[in-house]
């Protein structure tokens, strides 16, 4: 790395324009995929290093990405970005590079994480396979560790860096006619309790066997953290851009000032949230900030790019936030289930797609664990459903909020929702 840093610093001593930003990224991933209780061919190690260069020229911006990290390679990238910028029409939304003052909040950060030896990772898997086979179950999933470093340099003097590691073990266990999935996500595997993790999966997978037929309709549901995350991120992705809201292209355009969620719901960004594993800044060096997105059931602040924030005279949040936190409570999911007399527990969704933008309606399927709740207890599984559901209605119909679960760049609780709209069932 020092060699690349030296080259970048040398290039930035005499930048081609007063707007040159160079972002260096290094990612070293080991990813072990498995299926049928055995490691399969996606058993890989990859070392990826690259620089992304952005050059501004009289109100235009060009960019170039390469993994040719020699001095000639990085200089070539700078020149290519510069030449591209010169050919473009002037951009009315051009923004100069991030200043040192703007970047001051970036915390150069290098967390401590244990290096997990290769042998230990395969041992975790062999142990899981052994337990699952003993339980008569099949499995598929992946175990992954991915330490990374991101460093941002620009011609305005910004120097920001962040290192981290994301580790995950995602496991789907199967009977001959059902499945259940769970994941363990952390910086490393130091807090991994294999016995508890696998036995929970085995118990739920056994309970999922022989799903009973059930007709589609409106049900009270407890949505697990994964299910909530999947729907919430879709809603935010499509609707939170401030410019789109102002231009009437967002479902939030007509909902400003209106109630869009239950008043207890608080959704916010907090880059240094204890369970969030996201870096502190994106490739331009502008730090992620903490801000409220939905508070007291109403839109608090949409997402503002640097350009649009400057135009509106507000703080930029970034085109996308560094993390999404749905404030939870101390209630475990079991307590939420105990509060439902007759309903369904949804472990996760699958293939969520937008149906109607302006009403916030999404479709998707339940997957890997749809359980019947009767008298406050999980009593067995049912066939999977398709839903067509307004996510605004889901947030408005939320009656209970449980304990948060950290999932890479989110921390999301399970929630209880009335009248969740399942429209058809499938054959399993």
């Amino acid at each position, binding site marked *: 790395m020092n060699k690349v840093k030296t080259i970048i610093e040398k290039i930035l001593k005499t930048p081609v324009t007063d707007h040159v930003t160079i972002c260096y990224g290094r990612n070293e991933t080991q*990813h072990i*995929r*498995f*299926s*049928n209780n*055995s*490691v399969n*061919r*996606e*058993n*890989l190690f*990859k*070392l*990826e*290093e690259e620089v992304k260069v952005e050059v501004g020229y009289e109100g235009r911006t060009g*960019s*170039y*990405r390469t*993994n040719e*990290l020699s001095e000639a390679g990085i200089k070539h*990238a700078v020149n*290519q970005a510069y030449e*591209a910028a010169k*050919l*473009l*029409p002037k*951009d*009315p*939304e051009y923004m100069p590079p991030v200043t040192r003052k703007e970047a001051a909040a970036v915390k150069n950060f290098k967390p401590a994480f244990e290096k997990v030896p*290769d042998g230990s990772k*395969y041992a975790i*898997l062999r142990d899981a396979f052994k337990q699952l086979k003993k339980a008569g179950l*099949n499995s*598929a*999933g*992946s175990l992954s560790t991915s330490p990374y470093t991101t460093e941002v340099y620009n011609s305005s003097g910004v120097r920001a860096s962040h290192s981290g590691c994301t580790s995950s073990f*995602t496991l*789907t266990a199967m009977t001959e006619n059902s*499945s259940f999935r769970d994941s363990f996500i952390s910086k490393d595997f130091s807090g991994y309790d294999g016995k508890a993790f696998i036995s929970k999966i085995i118990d739920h997978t056994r309970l999922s066997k022989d799903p009973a037929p059930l007709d589609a309709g409106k049900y009270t549901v407890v949505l697990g953290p994964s299910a909530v995350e999947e729907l919430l991120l879709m809603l935010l992705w499509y609707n939170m851009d401030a410019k789109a809201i102002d*231009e*009437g*292209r967002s479902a939030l355009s007509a909902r400003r000032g209106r109630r869009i969620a239950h008043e207890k719901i608080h959704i916010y960004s907090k880059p240094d949230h204890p369970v969030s594993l996201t870096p502190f800044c994106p490739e331009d060096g502008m730090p992620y900030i903490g801000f409220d997105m939905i508070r007291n059931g109403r839109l608090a602040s949409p997402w503002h790019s640097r350009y649009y924030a400057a135009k509106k005279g507000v703080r930029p949040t970034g085109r996308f936030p560094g993390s999404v936190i749905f404030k939870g409570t101390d209630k475990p999911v079991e307590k939420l289930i105990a509060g439902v007399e007759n309903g369904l527990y949804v472990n996760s969704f*699958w*293939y*969520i*797609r*937008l*149906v*109607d*933008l302006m009403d916030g*309606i999404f*479709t998707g*399927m339940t*997957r890997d664990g749809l359980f019947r709740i009767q008298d406050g207890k999980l009593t067995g599984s049912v066939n999977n459903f*398709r839903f*067509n559901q307004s996510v605004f209605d889901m947030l408005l119909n939320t009656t209970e909020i449980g304990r948060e679960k950290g999932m890479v760049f989110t921390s999301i609780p399970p929630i209880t929702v009335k009248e969740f709209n399942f429209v*058809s069932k*499938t*054959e*399993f």
Partner: protein
Amino acid sequence: MNKLREIIKHLEAKKVRFADAREHLFRERSICTEDTRVEAITEENVSGVGVKVLWRNGWGYASTSRTDAASLRKTADKALALARHADKSAAAKVELAAEPKHIARFATKIKEDPFGVSVDDAVGILLRSGETILKGKDIIKASSQLVLRNMKKKYANTEGSLIETDVFTVLPQIEATARANGEVKSRHYWPSPMNAGYEYLRSIDFQANAERIAAQAREHCFAKSCETGPATLILDPEHLSLTMHESVGHPTELDRVLGYEESCAGRSFATLDKLGKFRYGSKIVNLVADNTLEGGLASCGYDDEGVECQKWHIVKDGILSGYGVNRELAHKMKMKRANGTTRATKYSDVPITRMPNLYLAPGKKPLSKEQLIADTDSGIYIEGMGSFSIDQMRLNMQFGGDAFWEIKNGRIRGMLKNVIYNAISYEFWRSCDAIADKTAFRRSGFITCGKGDPMQAAQMTHGASPARFRNIMVRRAK
């Protein structure tokens, strides 16, 4: 190629069962416009080498962007080390289907290198489209995207194959968004993405289509809602590309069928016991996989297992007839040879079974789109792609579209809105009762088909003539 030969020699000396090495040189230029400004222009130039090793019955894969001899040897040794770890949990014997040794080259036929054309030429095409769209009444947004790609690959394996490929891809699209009558509606023009040179981009009439989609986006805002209930649908080739992709292409990838994708992309209802007997569609439905299709997005000469690209039936006369099969799983079907559809997106990705170019064969009897509509008393004509979702076994599917028209007494009436339809995939294909002839055949395709873990985005072409489907459950979206 010498670098790859050295890797293979190094691994042969370590007595591996099989190994291959791939070098990728990937270049991509992407331009996005918003109204009359360039929102983003990025160019990517990334290269590296990936090494795959089979040790006894365990696979290992390692990759690096550092291509000096020492780094490549280290990468090869890492792949071997991972394969040895995998072998310890191997559940079954790995059997690789035979493939002849190939010393070969393949290149997309192009007239004009897209990267030899100044970037402002493409920017001009896109911005002029935007200007035209913005002239439309009630238009609030014009946007466009252009992706130009070149992938150069070298491949070597322990069986002596040495293959070089050079593939160019062009993907353009423009979009108009209108706001009127309390609605916001977008309309797209997606010329089929192609493996082609820049001359393809020059052949497209963006101006006429920009005017058309701007007018249709506005018209969509004033359309009446569809009725909920069973209906006859006539689907255009672009729309059918998405339905066949989701409900035929994915469920007939053999790795999915056998559980290798269970944790991510899912499995399939089209299990091996159904091969040769399961009625997937009506008798007129023929779905053909063809990675030899000229200009097809998956047409690359040889796949990333060194297998020559081929053509075969997935569904023949309505019956499930084939799968996409890699060398490792061919024996499960008693196939002597894989069918050349295993691909990796980047050098750092493990090659996996990917959807081939897949098309619905045109009807054999003369029938134009207009005749097909004239032959339909009542129904809905759908163009383009909209909302799409299907379960992980590829059964319960729900699709929207980009634009919808009511058909009454054999004629197109006004536009409709809020149309989504829902079906079980094989019941959908069984309900197909008419397919227009080859004069109405059009291509479409994708460059962002997600599969694998870590996720890879692959490209493939689809195609169809307009086709009619009876008794499909239509729902009003809201």
